[in-house]
């Protein structure tokens, strides 16, 4: 349990998707103009990361890794399909996003109303594919660890986008130098927030 908690908090703070790896910056910058939309996109990312990472973990461990196919029989033990991982991961992500969108629309219309427009956007959010690739690189031992990592990264991303959206709403009333307005000042604020988040690294 301690181990899972460690993965969870590490994924939120010291290995925050936005502040440590800059993943998902495109939608982070595009959808952070108001807190309301930021919250919607943030929840959608938590959700999709929490679903796709375990699925990709299964795929990695039972299909793609060198020797992963040994459950099919002795003669498959030498197969190494890891070169296919990019295309498999992105296909899984795109189809799960599509599937999730349909399921949510059918069974939870209220949630669909809140997340709906953001779900298709997420298929090409670098944070999702980045999460899958980090999962592959770090070789989590169990599906529980992978899921914890997925949800934790999602929560970290959520915190980051909601925080920047709140700041951007207020900064509109400030006297920012004209060429820095909008994009420039958002970058600088994110940089300062990232420096603050670095202090979690020592934990």
């Amino acid at each position, binding site marked *: 349990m301690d181990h899972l908690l460690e993965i969870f908090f590490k994924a939120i703070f010291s290995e925050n998707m936005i502040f440590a790896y800059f993943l998902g910056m495109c939608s982070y910058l595009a959808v952070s103009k108001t807190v309301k939309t930021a919250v919607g996109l943030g929840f959608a990312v938590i959700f999709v990361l929490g679903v796709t990472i375990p699925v990709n973990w299964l795929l990695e461990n039972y299909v793609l890794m060198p020797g992963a196919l040994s459950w099919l029989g002795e003669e498959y033990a030498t197969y190494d399909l890891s*070169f296919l991982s990019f295309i498999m991961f*992105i296909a899984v992500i*795109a189809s799960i996003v599509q599937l999730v969108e349909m399921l949510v629309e059918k069974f939870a219309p209220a949630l669909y109303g809140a997340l709906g427009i953001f779900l298709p956007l997420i298929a090409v959010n670098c944070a999702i*594919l980045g999460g899958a690739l980090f999962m592959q690189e770090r070789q989590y031992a169990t599906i529980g660890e992978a899921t914890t990592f997925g949800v934790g990264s999602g929560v970290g991303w959520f915190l980051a986008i909601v925080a920047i959206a709140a700041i951007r709403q207020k900064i509109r009333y400030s006297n920012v130098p004209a*060429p820095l307005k909008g994009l420039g000042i958002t970058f600088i604020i994110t940089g300062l927030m*990232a420096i603050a988040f670095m202090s979690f690294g020592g934990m």
Partner: protein
Amino acid sequence: MSEKEKEPLFSKKNKKLMTDPLGDNNPVTIQVLGICSALAITVSIVQALTMTGAVLFVLVAGNVIISLMRNIIPPKIRIIVQLVVVASLVIIVNEVLKAFLPDLGAKLSVFVGLIITNCIIMGRFEAFAMANKPWQSALDGVGNALGYGLVLVVVSVIREFFGTGKLAGIEILGNSAEGTGLYSIGYMNNNLVILAPFALITVALVIWVQRAINKSLVEEH
């Protein structure tokens, strides 16, 4: 359509496709696409150039492929088709890097794979290649990849020079460990510059300079 076919290969309009993304329509600083990788791998010029090369290849080849297929891709599943095209091209890049430049490939780690979700690529497929001919699409790809590369190189030059005192791995200011060159009179590297957060601030500075020069790019909010 027939007049367009007579257009010379490098007509004014076609040249504009290539030069616009370098400046006033830059994919990174103006359209805000492809930021993720632009920030993460700009610690050294060599990494920035490798990444630019990879993106150049993927974007040009992908643009041409998508443009050739633009009339037969069913609109409803176009995103999946585009993702498959990019993913296949990125796999080629990744295998080439692994085979010939294993050290660099390891440094770029997940960011090679993340070219798949680099918004510049999907953005150009959607906005340009789906509606234009292969040759124009190829030029558009070259222009946007170079525009992306330009920002990467500028940012990485700033970060590498002030962070380590080197450029492309060559010691410009002397050796900091041995205290030669500028270091002998007390110059110190700014370690903050090579840390991740400073990438954001450097990009902001680039944006600041660009928008200060060209006032029409300034945003309302």
